[in-house]
């Protein structure tokens, strides 16, 4: 027998990641509302840097860290290498994120920002050790595990480049201009960390949630090599030869093909699913994967345009926004309500399973609110893209207000799950809340 939940780390470790992530998401939407005009400017502005890092570090990466601590034991069939290390990682990562975002907002490029970058780098090093050592504990070779470990290597590289840029602000020592390293930092973060990680995690979780049965891994393996070849080539060009417009087109086509193979893998799983009726969390997830087409197509226009090395506005902003908010955002919005209820439910009710009147994981949150969240977030997303594309400031402001509404709905539902009370099973079948919890 393979004891899955017995390998799982403590619930409070995971929950604190989600709690921090929820607050960071709300903070991001409020900051976005008050700096809506920054979308029309250059992406290397204090406001956009703050927004991006609050979003990618505070919300997305924080939730990914928490979810991975739960998922790694499922993939490797062994327990997490070190729980203590995970707690320390959380503290360093949370402090580093708050300090870095504050420094970007105020644009204080001195010691506090340097400390923030070192806190983040050290937390990512500790996180990497935990991931690699956990994967090392098993002899089972799985493509999901390769995706996750490689994504973590790119995350490390992203953090190293980020730290070097922070020090370069005060003590310029990097041989090329700052924007050059920003491109490497963003690409390794977006494609190396997010895309590889999402493919690795989604290829395990989605067929499981859809009840699709075993799927062929050929497409995933091809996607893995295509995307990594592109990242390596981009890295070598960026460090040694300089970025080249024509080679950039070829590199982009590699990642484009990799992404299409991933979409095709998920489509096959979706088609062969036994679970015909999708719950609202899975509708978020499938929407996210469908929306991946938008940044993929935007990317083609960006790389084919004459000024592919120099960013063109607003297409570059639309490209980044549609990737981060459309694809990654929808995915995290949906998967939060697939993973968190299960984690909390297992802790509170797992031992009572098989007895009558036990709520199911889906009963721990309001499906109505989640439906509403989907509509509000989708409307905000479409409004933002239209506002950016046609340069309509009122559309952008209205959309940012809707994002705040979506973040509030997300937080209400998330805190509803986190604060759920376990129940005493009474012999006559009725339930009442525990006095102590």
């Amino acid at each position: 027998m393979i004891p899955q939940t017995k390998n799982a780390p403590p619930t409070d470790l995971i929950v604190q990641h989600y709690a921090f992530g929820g607050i960071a998401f709300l903070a991001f939407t409020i900051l976005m509302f008050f700096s809506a005009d920054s979308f029309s400017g250059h992406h290397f502005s204090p406001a956009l840097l703050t927004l991006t890092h609050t979003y990618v570090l505070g919300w997305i990466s924080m939730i990914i860290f928490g979810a991975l601590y739960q998922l790694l034991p499922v993939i490797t069939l062994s327990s997490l290498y070190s729980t203590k290390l995970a707690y320390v990682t959380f503290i360093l990562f949370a402090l580093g994120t708050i300090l870095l975002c504050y420094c970007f907002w105020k644009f204080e490029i001195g010691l506090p920002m340097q400390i923030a970058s070192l806190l983040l780098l050290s937390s990512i090093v500790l996180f990497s050790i935990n991931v690699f050592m956990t994967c090392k504990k098993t002899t089972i070779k799985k493509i999901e595990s390769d995706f996750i470990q490689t994504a973590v290597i790119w995350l490390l590289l992203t953090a190293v480049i980020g730290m070097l840029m922070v020090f370069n602000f005060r003590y310029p020592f990097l041989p090329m201009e700052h924007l050059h390293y920003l491109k490497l930092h963003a690409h390794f973060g977006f494609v190396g960390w997010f895309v590889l990680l999402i493919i690795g995690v989604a290829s395990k979780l989605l067929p499981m949630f859809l009840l699709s049965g075993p799927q062929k891994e050929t497409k995933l393996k091809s996607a893995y090599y295509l995307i990594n070849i592109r990242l390596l080539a981009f890295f070598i060009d960026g460090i040694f030869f300089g970025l080249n417009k024509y080679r950039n087109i070829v590199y982009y086509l590699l990642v484009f093909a990799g992404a299409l193979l991933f979409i095709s893998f998920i489509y096959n799983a979706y088609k062969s699913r036994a679970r015909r009726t999708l719950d609202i969390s899975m509708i978020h997830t499938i929407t996210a994967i469908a929306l991946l087409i938008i940044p993929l197509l935007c990317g083609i226009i960006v790389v084919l345009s004459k000024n592919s090395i120099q960013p063109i506005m607003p297409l570059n902003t639309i490209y980044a926004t549609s990737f981060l908010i459309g694809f990654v955002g929808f995915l995290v919005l949906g998967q939060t309500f697939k993973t968190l209820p299960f984690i909390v439910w297992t802790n509170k009710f797992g031992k009572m399973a098989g007895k009558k009147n036990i709520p199911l994981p889906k009963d721990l949150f309001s499906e109505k609110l989640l439906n509403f969240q989907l509509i509000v977030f989708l409307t905000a997303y479409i409004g933002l893209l239209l506002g950016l594309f046609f340069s309509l400031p009122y559309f952008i402001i209205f959309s940012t207000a809707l994002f705040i509404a979506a973040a509030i709905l997300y937080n209400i539902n998330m805190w509803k799950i986190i604060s759920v009370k376990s129940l005493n099973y009474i012999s006559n079948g009725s339930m009442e809340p525990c006095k102590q919890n």
Partner: protein
Amino acid sequence: MEAWNHASKIEQDVYYALKEVIDPELAINIVDLGLIYTIEYSQEKGIVVTMTLSSKGCPMGDVITDAIKNVIAEKFPKLPFTLELVWEPVWTTDMVTNDGRKELGM
């Protein structure tokens, strides 16, 4: 259900008891999901249930097996019980019963 018609009374009771165990993710009982392969009863071994999970490393694996133990302990407190988790044959959607198919919307 036909396959269970020739089972002993205890085996049939176990079958119906297992129908009370719900997969928390899918909200369907594990019998209709096709996870139960065999139910055997003998005086020497007691109750032996052979089952699988919908995927290796299923995060609900422990919860489901614990739930089975809880149900059997409650209904048959005096009988020894063994739960065998197997991966062959691999579970496929063909193993879902007609009732399960209706619930899944297949």
